[in-house]
Structure formats: structure tokens, C-alpha cells
């Protein structure tokens, strides 16, 4: 376990900025309970500084996880966000899409969000921006990238894709073997 290098931090923050924009500041500057990013193996964890300190007593091969896993570095040095980060992404989300009840299960099975399933969406979503997907009851379901801007999406066919899925909470069941460790 170690703090991120400058380069790694840059890669991670660029990725996060897609989804939460300037709200990253809230992640980094938490006066009451300062949080830090930690790299363990190839995974990036976001954790309270206090917990990161006590976790130093655990040897590297035996430390499986701490705090919340945000994602992992691929072998090519890119950073990939995991669904486990949804708690924070949803909290600070910049662009949101709500889907109707009939669209919930198709999305949780790993499909993209169709126009027909969209209940409402943020007004100002540009094309190819990171969005967080919610159910109509405001339960975060996943995240993805907008296929069209809000205005263009209005003129879309009901079967047209509005959001390309990148992660959804169905992965907890589908990818349990690969997602963690």
C-alpha cells in the first residue's frame, strides 16, 4: 500500500473529472475527516486517513482491501473506474439520468440505456460526458457515457441509445469473481 505518484494521481483525477467535474475538490478536501487515495497492488482505494494509517500494520500480501475501491490501473497504465466507486460518484455527480422502472432490470443486466427507458435527465448534458444512472426512486444504479447531448436525445427514436453503460450494480453478481482481488 502506498500513496499515488503524481502521474497516477493525474490519470485518476482526469477520469473522475469526467463524472464529477469540479466536485473532486470535495473528495480531496474534507477538513473533518481527511481522506486519501492509496494504491494496493493495481487497485486504487479511497479511504479515511485515519484508517489508512492503522492499515499500515497489515503486510502488503495480506491486505485485501481498505475503505472503498475506486478502480484499477490497467497494464497499459490507464485507469478504469469500478462500480464500487458509485457511492461517491452518485454523491457528487454532475450529469444524471433517471430511468423508469421498466428500464431498471435491462440496465442491471448490462444493457445500454435506451430512450424509451429514460424517465428524466439533466438539462445540459453534452455528448460523450460521464453520467450517473439513477432509478426513479433516486437509487444509484450505475454510470456511463452519454451517447447524445440532452437536446439531441430528445429527438431520438425510442430504441435509440442515450447512455452507453460502463458500470452497473448488477456487476456485484455477474463479476464477483473478477471485480474484487
Amino acid at each position, binding site marked *: 500500500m502506498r500513496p499515488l505518484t503524481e502521474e497516477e494521481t493525474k490519470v485518476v483525477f482526469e477520469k473522475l473529472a469526467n463524472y464529477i467535474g469540479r466536485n473532486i475538490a470535495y473528495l480531496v478536501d474534507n477538513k473533518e475527516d481527511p481522506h486519501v487515495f492509496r494504491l494496493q497492488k493495481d487497485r486504487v482505494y479511497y479511504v479515511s486517513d485515519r484508517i489508512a494509517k492503522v492499515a499500515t500494520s497489515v503486510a502488503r500480501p495480506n491486505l485485501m*482491501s481498505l475503505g472503498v*475501491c475506486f478502480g484499477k490501473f490497467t497494464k497499459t497504465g490507464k485507469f478504469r473506474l469500478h462500480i464500487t466507486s458509485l457511492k461517491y460518484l452518485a454523491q457528487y455527480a454532475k450529469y444524471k439520468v433517471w430511468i423508469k422502472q421498466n428500464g431498471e*432490470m435491462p440496465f442491471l443486466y448490462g444493457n445500454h440505456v435506451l430512450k424509451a427507458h429514460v424517465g428524466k435527465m439533466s438539462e445540459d448534458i453534452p455528448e460523450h460526458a460521464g453520467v450517473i444512472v439513477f432509478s426513479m426512486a433516486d437509487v444509484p444504479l450505475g454510470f456511463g457515457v452519454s451517447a447524445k447531448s440532452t437536446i439531441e436525445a430528445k429527438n431520438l427514436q425510442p430504441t435509440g441509445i442515450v447512455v452507453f453503460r460502463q458500470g452497473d450494480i448488477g456487476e456485484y453478481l455477474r463479476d464477483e469473481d473478477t471485480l474484487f*482481488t
Partner: protein
Amino acid sequence: MGRRAKNKQGMPPSLEEFQKTGKKKDRKRKAEKESREVKKPTKKAKRSKQEEEYKDPEDLPEVDLEELSAAKKSLFDDDEEEEAGLDEFEQLEDDSEPEVDDEFVDSDEEGRERPMFSDNESDDMDAINAANMEEYSKKLDEEALMEQQDAEDELLEENTKNPRAKVLPTEEEEEEMKQSGPDLTMVRTRMLEVVKVLEDFKNLAEEGRSRVEYVDRLLKDICEYFGYTPFLAEKLFNLFSPSEAIEFFEANEIHRPVTIRTNTLVTRRRELAQTLVNKGVNLQPIGPWTKVGLQVFDSQVPIGATPEYLAGHYILQAASSFLPVMALDPQENERILDMAAAPGGKTTYISALMKNTGCVFANDANKARTKSLIANIHRLGCTNTVVCNYDAREFPKVIGGFDRVLLDAPCSGTGVIAKDQNVKVNRTEKDFIQIPHLQKQLLLSAIDSVDAHSATGGVIVYSTCSVAVEENEAVVDYALRKRPNVKLVETGLAIGKPGFTSYRGKQFNQKVSLTRRYYPHAYNVDGFFVAKFQKVASSPHDVSKAGAKEKEMAADAEAEKDGLIHGDFANFDDEADKEIMKESIKHNLKKKGINPNTVDIEKKLPKH
């Protein structure tokens, strides 16, 4: 419906009349029975009178004995019952009857009083029409139910009234059973009979049969009927009274209800229940002792794959798993260790009770199982956890000074046989030595990992999902002996039976009664055990840097030293023994008529 009921009761008019006489006689005979004890000489005369009355029904032209017995057959499916019934009819013709059978008749007659009334009503049934049909059918249903009840009562009564019943099979019967294979209904009936005898052995046991014979038969039947190994059946049987043991074994055949725990980090129980009810899930709070548990009766959607489940609003968790965490009673801003955490039901509950403050160390020795642990921690949104993969005996070398430690120890699983039927055949004697051996070391490690001077805590909770004494009370007692700096305290749980303070000749610390046991038949939760310790002082062990290997070696050495004998025997004094042996040899020689002085006694002594 009406016709069916009629069939069931055979030929109404004849039977009715038959019973009427029976009833009259019944009353008479009761009085007679009382008088019989007082004036025995008149017995014979009365007996003849009685026989006369018996003959009464025979004279009636309609009565067909065969038909009657057939009707009886449909009423009582039980073999025994049939026999009893037939007995009675035989007796009608038999003049010289022993008293025992007399009583048979008595009880039978009493049991049938009520059906007779129903007969009267079924006569009226000629008048039924479409309007009151339903009412009648309802009535008949009730009657049928009552009859059944009566039959059961009767069965009970018969047994109490008929002591020394032959329950155990004879040798020939046993031979036969071996050849023809087991008849499960018969085995079951016999099991219940034997239990009844064991409950009141003095009055009900057959002459010349010992209690051991009954218990052996019962154990054999349990093995056959439920599919346990003889070893495990005996082990579990010894925990309970015979009737409770049967209840326990039967409860192990039924699955416990599906229960879920609300994740209070994300939602509230009322809201969750509302959303799930809207999805077609039929549920209800588990009980007054938990504010977060819900019991699921049936569901139209897979309860482990709803959007709410995936969003971490609840977790599927057995009701019994709530108990150790409730006993642990975690407080905010503490540092807590869960020594055997996977799959994370308890860890996430701890985290939720702490409202994501402080720090929870979740350890599991099995790397593969940490996956599900991490998955659950993330799904339920716990942010205050550290997951590590150590042999739990490495603590406190890795890190110590925790406010509270939960040790839900790996165990034989004799409390969760309903979940995993393999336990019935897989557990051997060796397991009940090795598993407690590990548990003892784990518990000592748990105790050493706690900070005795913690302002809020200093608590250790030990739990297993086993009911075996070796894994529970014995381990707790061992810890109390080895670590005088801990004491047992009340678990603070609303339900549960106190732990055993003595078991099969072993005496445990009296405080062990503060631990709690849970049985599937008593609370409809998995079999479980919870003990709560409070650490009152620190000890040199707390700072020991011994790892798992050193601890294992130390424990092995200790086990070898203690051995099986435990120093219970006095030492042998060879010299003193020699004198005594010489004396006895001399004595024997004298008996044989040999002069002991002519023989070399030293030679006769056994050589070492």
C-alpha cells in the same frame, strides 16, 4: 361431501346403536372399576353382566364385524389403533379376558363418545338441501378434525393407561427388519414410543429391559430415519432430553425461514419493507428482539437479485447471525476486529451499527472467501473497513489493542444441519478434537488482541454455529482458565438458553451459565452459541510476538504434556507394590497347599 362422511363412518344406525350401548356400559363400568378395588369378590358376578351387555350388539342383525373394522380402519390410519380396535372386537366373543384388555376397551369407548354425536347429526343429513349444504360440510370438516384429535388423544391415553407396552422389537423382528429393509413409518412410530417410555421409565418400561436397550434402539432408529452417523447421533442426543432431542432432529429436516437484514447505512426498515412489498414480497419483522431483521415468507422476485439488493439496501442473513453482533454491541469511533469475517454479514452489521465511523478490521483466513467479503462490504457501502487475509492466530502480532473483538469461530456446523445435510455424515470424532483445538487458540488470540484499558469496550464475543459442548462451553472454560484477566458477562440478548455448567461429568466454571445457546426447535433460528467476555486487565500475552506457528507449537506441546491423563492418577510406588504382590503370591501358594518358603517368590513377580 356428505356421502364421503357417511362412508367414513360406516353403517350409521347399527354403529350408533352399538355405541349407545357402549356408552351406557361405559358409565357403568367406570363406577364398577371404582368398586372393583373395594370389593373384589363381587367382580365375577359383575363381569358376567358386562358380558351380557357385550353380547347385545351381536344380536343385532345389521352388525357386521368386518364392516365395522373396515370403518375403523378408515378412521384411524395408525396400525396400533387398528390392533386396539380389533382387540376389542375379539373380546366381544371372548369370555375369559385379562384385565389389561379390559382397560383397552375402556379407553376406546371413551374416545368414541364424540363421533357418536356426529352420527346423530349425519342422520339428519337426509334433510340437507343446497342452502345449508355448505354449513353442513363445514360442520363435518370440524367433526373430522375433532375425530382425529380424539384419535390422537386416545393414542396417548392408551399408552399412559397401558404401562409395560412392548415397544422394543424382539430379536426375530430385528432380523426381519434387516432383511426387508427399514419401514420408515414404523421406525418413526417406534421412535416416539421409545421416547415416551424414556420420559417415564419407571412406569412405562417393559419388565426386564434396561434403559440402555431403549436408548440404543432409539439411536439406531434416529440414524436410520434421519441419516446420521451413529457417532454424531449419540453426540447430539446427549445434549437434550429424549423428547427434545427428537424435536431437534426433526427441526434439522426443515429449512429455517429466509431472513434479510436492513442496511441502516442506506435505508430504513419501514421503507425497505414498503418497496419489497410493492414488488410482491411477502414479509414481516422477525421479532421484537431486532429492529433491522425481516422475515421473507414468499416472493415473486428472486430476493437475492432485486435492484434494492444490488443497491445494498439489505443483505440475506440468517437471524442467528444477528446475535453475536448484538452481543458485541459496537460503539461509534471504536476499533473493532472481526477475526473470521467472510462472507461479511456480521462485519457489515458492525459497520452499520458504528455508522461508518471508527475502523473495522475484517479478517479471513481463506483468500477465496475474502472476495465475497469485499463484495458485500462495498455493496453495502461500508467505508470504515480494512480487509486482511491472515491466519487469525497471527493477531495480536499483526495489530492489537482493539476495543472489541468478534470471533465467530470456524466450527463443525452441528447447528446448521438444516442448511448443510453433509454434516450428518462427514463429521467424525477427529473433528471434535481438532476443531476445538483451533478454536481455543483463536479465542486466546482474540482475548490478547483486546485493549483492557479501552474506555468504551474491552469486549470479546465468541460464537459458533455448533451445538456441541466441546466447541462451546469447553472452549470458554479453557479460556477462563488460561486467561484469568477476562471474565464472562451477560450477553445482553433477549432470547437464548443458558450454557451448560456441567456436562457428562465435566464441570465448567459456574459463570459459563452466562453464555447463551440457541436451538432450531426452540427459536426457529440456526443452532448457535454466544459468549461475551470482558477483559479486566492486561497480560504479558498481549505484547507477545508469537505468530500462528508458535502458538500452534505451544498448544501442541501443552496438549502432549496434559495428555489424556491430566495428572489425575497418583504416581506408582514400585517398592510398596512389590511387598503387596509378594504377600498375595504367598497367600495363593498357601491356598494351593504349597509351602511358600520352599518357592523363590522373587521369580514369580512380574518383570518390568
